[in-house]
């Protein structure tokens, strides 16, 4: 049955409605697209900031590690030495991404006082976002750099007399090693009184009025606190790091204790009140011995000469010296077992070097 054809009307309305829908759809798409782009830009910026924070955290981790590990395991790569901390923890950020942190220590040689820490944080899900920070740091102990690398014998006054020639062995790895350093001028430096080995004697090597500060990074009072902490903790003599001598340590006015080892040197301070104690026969010390008392008593020189003593490290006399004898042998630490590069007391931490922080 053929019905009557229905005449459809409203083409104009349909066109207008469709146009409106298309226009609204396009506008909505544009808005959504822009918003999405903006959001991605913001998220990337946030991620970049987070990666900076993660790299900063890595630097702090490296700094902390450097301040607690005395001997890093260096690997030679071209003309650099590289080392990694044991583990650097991964970090996650508020943006739900996590960062892998790679930390590297760099030094020119094992003796380097300044070590460069590089911390690189890379986002796990967005690998193109990463930040690399660099910073120089310096591990510190109670000794200054000069103290850790002190020549075998340092004298703040004059060397005017010895009984026989004390033997001094300087650092064999140095190009111009110093065996004897004095704070005074040449006229106080009687080179013929000592056996300088392969090294030289140097006048005006440090400031006489700042002898303690030349070798120690802490004050005498702070050194005493370190000593008291070890005494309070009842640490056995063989494991002590710091020692402030008193009259009970002497036997008939002589020092006879063997202290320190190549890997755990002793920092032995003989205060001024103890005078200039003689060393007993056969004494061996590893570390730095600092004598504050007067060792330049000219009236008694010769009758008060030291006995047989061998020091691996350094001896510092903060006065004139007349009491050294031919039985005294002072060797640089490299002559000790294991050949440590210098006197290595426990680390107190690592300090960042201002002016070296960079993200370039």
């Amino acid at each position, binding site marked *: 049955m053929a019905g009557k054809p229905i005449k459809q009307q409203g083409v104009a309305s349909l066109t207008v409605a469709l146009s409106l829908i298309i226009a609204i759809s396009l*506008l909505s798409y544009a*808005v959504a697209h*822009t*918003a999405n782009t*903006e959001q991605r*830009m*913001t998220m990337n*910026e946030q991620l970049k*900031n987070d990666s*900076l924070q993660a790299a900063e955290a890595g630097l702090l981790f490296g700094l902390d590690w450097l301040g607690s590990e005395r001997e890093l395991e260096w690997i030679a790569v071209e003309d650099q030495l590289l080392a990694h901390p044991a583990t650097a923890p991964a970090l996650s950020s508020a943006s739900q991404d996590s960062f892998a942190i790679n930390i590297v220590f760099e030094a*020119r040689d094992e003796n*380097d*006082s*300044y070590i460069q820490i590089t911390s690189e944080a890379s986002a796990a899900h967005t690998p193109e976002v990463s930040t690399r920070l660099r910073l*120089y740091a310096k591990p510190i102990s109670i000794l200054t750099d000069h103290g850790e690398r002190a020549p075998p014998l340092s004298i703040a006054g004059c060397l005017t007399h010895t009984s026989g020639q004390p033997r001094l062995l300087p650092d064999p790895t140095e190009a111009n090693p110093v065996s004897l350093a004095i704070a005074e001028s040449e006229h106080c430096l009687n080179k013929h009184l000592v056996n300088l080995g392969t090294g030289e004697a140097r006048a005006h090597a440090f400031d006489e009025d700042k002898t303690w500060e030349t070798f120690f*990074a802490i004050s005498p009072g702070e050194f005493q606190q370190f000593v008291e902490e070890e005494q309070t903790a009842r640490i056995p003599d063989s494991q002590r790091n710091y020692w402030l001598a008193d009259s009970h340590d002497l036997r008939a006015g002589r020092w006879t204790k063997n202290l320190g080892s190549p890997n755990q040197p002793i920092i032995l301070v003989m205060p001024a009140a103890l005078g200039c104690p003689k060393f007993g026969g056969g004494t061996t010390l590893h570390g730095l011995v600092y004598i504050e008392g007067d060792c330049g008593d000219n009236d008694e020189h010769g009758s008060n000469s030291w006995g047989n003593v061998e020091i691996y490290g350094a001896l510092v006399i903060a006065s004139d010296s007349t009491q050294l004898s031919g039985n005294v042998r002072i060797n640089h630490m490299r002559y000790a077992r294991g050949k440590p590069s210098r006197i290595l007391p426990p680390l107190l931490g690592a*300090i960042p*070097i*201002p*002016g*070296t*922080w*960079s*993200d*370039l």
Partner: protein
Amino acid sequence: MPVKLRQTGFSLTELMVGSTVALIVLSGAIQLYTINIRASNDSLQLSRLSHDTRSMLSIMERELLRSGYWSFSPEHTLIQGNPFTQQKAYLTIDAKAEEADNSCILYSYDRYQDGLIGVGGSGHLTASTTRDNVEQFGFRLNDGRLQMRQSGANFSCNSGRWQTMNEESILIDTLHFERHTHCTHAQKPASDCSDDEPGWLHTRIDIRLSASLASTPNIQQTQSTSVDIRNDQWLANR
């Protein structure tokens, strides 16, 4: 049996009433739609302004973090000799003439890692400077624009070539830098500085940035941040 339906149209009155109602409804809908579009546009512009303001702050923050950096060679140089933390090269807060106080900051760092301060071709040549590049930077407010220093003979807020960072559609209303310092003893980092002894000067810079849309001044955005300068300044004697 087919029923014959009688088809009738609307009367003129019905059509007019219907059209009027439809027009009222349509005009209301259009108005609502327009308001929505305007609101969404405002929201978009605010979000863009916010994003731009944050980006400008972020750029300033990242740049200022580097202030005072010096390519350090421990075997050749003493860190105390860092030319980038000397008084004239380190952070200076000032203002361009006729602009609000503290609306300009000057700083420098060793971007080209050659150990020397790049002063550009027309800069003043000394033992610690080079004309090979420009490493004297700055940010300033200039007539509603945020600008970054590019070059110039004098390292100041009033001269040299500066590049505008914001788009023309954005007006910078306020740029304010505030400096906070704290000095620690060079040998004892846990202690404050004492007179006549060397120390390290730690610096924090607070930055406040207000911007608005040039076309719609009532759309404004103010953001602030603090930057702890990583590279401290060496003070030999206080």
